[in-house]
């Protein structure tokens, strides 16, 4: 084990690494925005859409949650041109990762919708709010608070999952790393550096989630099971 590590050849390619890091953050951000929007729409459709919409939403969610992201990527990138739709690698990556996140986040959003007791919505309706206003002012923040850990956990998986997009040569960090590796032959060093950068990206995103969380939830809402009112909800349901 006399191998001596030498990071110099890898680190001298810093511009490529930085470019790759930026591309990864860009790919992640786009996929998160699109994916969460898809997830929210699908969750609402599944929550109180007509039967056909609910079925469609369920099929979408199960298909994407029960097949690998890599295969979804291959299908979009290699398979779609066969049907006459040609996407660039970068486009295919954003779409595949967004659809994947959409399926997972739809499930998470659904849990949030289910966690808010019906009585909260009724109280809002009784005050004259519309269903939409009740959603916006009464359901949204407490529901988001309940699912926030699960949601941000999923976002972390999604960000790390972008590395898979290197398989179709979409521009991102792992691809940049693979290029450096194949010209420097410093495999170990290259991938250790990549790991370090990904860890830094993950930590940066986590800090961002915490900040957003602090903005959204000005104050801690205890989980619904611990709230006194929920005990009464049950009592009332039985009465």
């Amino acid at each position: 084990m006399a191998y001596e590590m030498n990071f110099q050849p890898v680190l001298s390619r810093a511009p490529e690494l930085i470019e790759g890091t930026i591309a990864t953050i860009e790919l992640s951000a786009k996929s998160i925005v699109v994916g969460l929007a898809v997830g929210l729409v699908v969750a609402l459709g599944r929550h109180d859409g007509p039967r056909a919409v609910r079925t469609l939403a369920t099929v979408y969610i199960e298909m994407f949650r029960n097949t690998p992201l890599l295969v979804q990527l291959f299908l979009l990138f290699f398979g779609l041109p066969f049907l006459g739709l040609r996407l660039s690698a970068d486009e295919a990556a954003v779409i595949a990762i967004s659809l994947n996140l959409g399926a997972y986040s739809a499930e998470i959003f659904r849990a949030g919708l289910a966690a808010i007791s019906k009585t909260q919505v009724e109280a809002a309706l009784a005050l004259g709010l519309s269903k939409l206003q009740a959603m916006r002012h009464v359901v949204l923040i407490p529901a988001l608070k309940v699912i926030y850990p699960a949601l941000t956990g999923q976002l972390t998986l999604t960000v790390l999952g972008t590395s898979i997009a290197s398989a179709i040569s979409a521009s991102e960090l792992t691809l940049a790393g693979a290029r450096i590796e194949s010209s420097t032959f410093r495999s170990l060093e290259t991938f250790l550096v990549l790991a370090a950068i990904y860890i830094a990206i993950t930590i940066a995103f986590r800090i961002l989630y915490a900040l957003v969380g602090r903005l959204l939830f000005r104050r801690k809402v205890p989980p619904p099971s611990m709230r006194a009112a929920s005990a009464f909800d049950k009592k009332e349901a039985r009465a």
Partner: protein
Amino acid sequence: MSTALHIEGLKKYFGAHEVLKGVDLEVASGDVIAVIGRSGSGKSTMLRCINGLEPFQQGRIRIAGHVLGEGPQNLRVLRTEVGMVFQSYNLFPHLTVAENITLAPRVVRKLPRARHDELVDKVLSRVGLLDKKHAYPDELSGGQQQRVAIARSLAMEPRVMLFDEVTSALDPELTGEVLKAIQELAETGMTMVLVTHEMGFARQVATKTVFMHHGRVWESGPSEEIFGNPQTDELRAFIEPNLK
């Protein structure tokens, strides 16, 4: 006196289960009606029909100038004119007391921000909680939360208020403060329908008491008569163990 609420032949089914079997009730403006009866007799369902939270199959409800049961209605306008207070308070946990109170005036009535403070002070002083403006619901006792819920409802200046067992979830020592707030409200001439298990309170505060049994108004009349001289065996059996 004019009629504030008129219910005629109200029937309500949950699936095949007939919960309200033809309820008739008339409430004059300024009346305070106590609704008593066993658990499951349909009291909550009736209240929920009155402000449109439950659809019903037959009958008619006239309230605050609206008629339910004759085609589509603007339920939102109706609900701003009919306040409802629940057993479980249902305060919004992520909003302060003041924000709970101003939510509906702000969102539904578009009340300008400059007038929020004034409104909050007005309704909170009526329930004696001026000092809790900036507290969050879980920092308050059950009795205080319920008083905030009453204030929140008052902020929409309803013409009629419905109370569904608003003290049932409270410890006995907290019940009094909520009943006091309701009694003070009654003295201002607010029209109210209260479902309650507090027989003493019903007798003292309600102008009229309604005894519901098996989805019907079994017996009704001035509270003094209902409690002092019950006519049916069912009512006697219901109130005797309650009036120790």
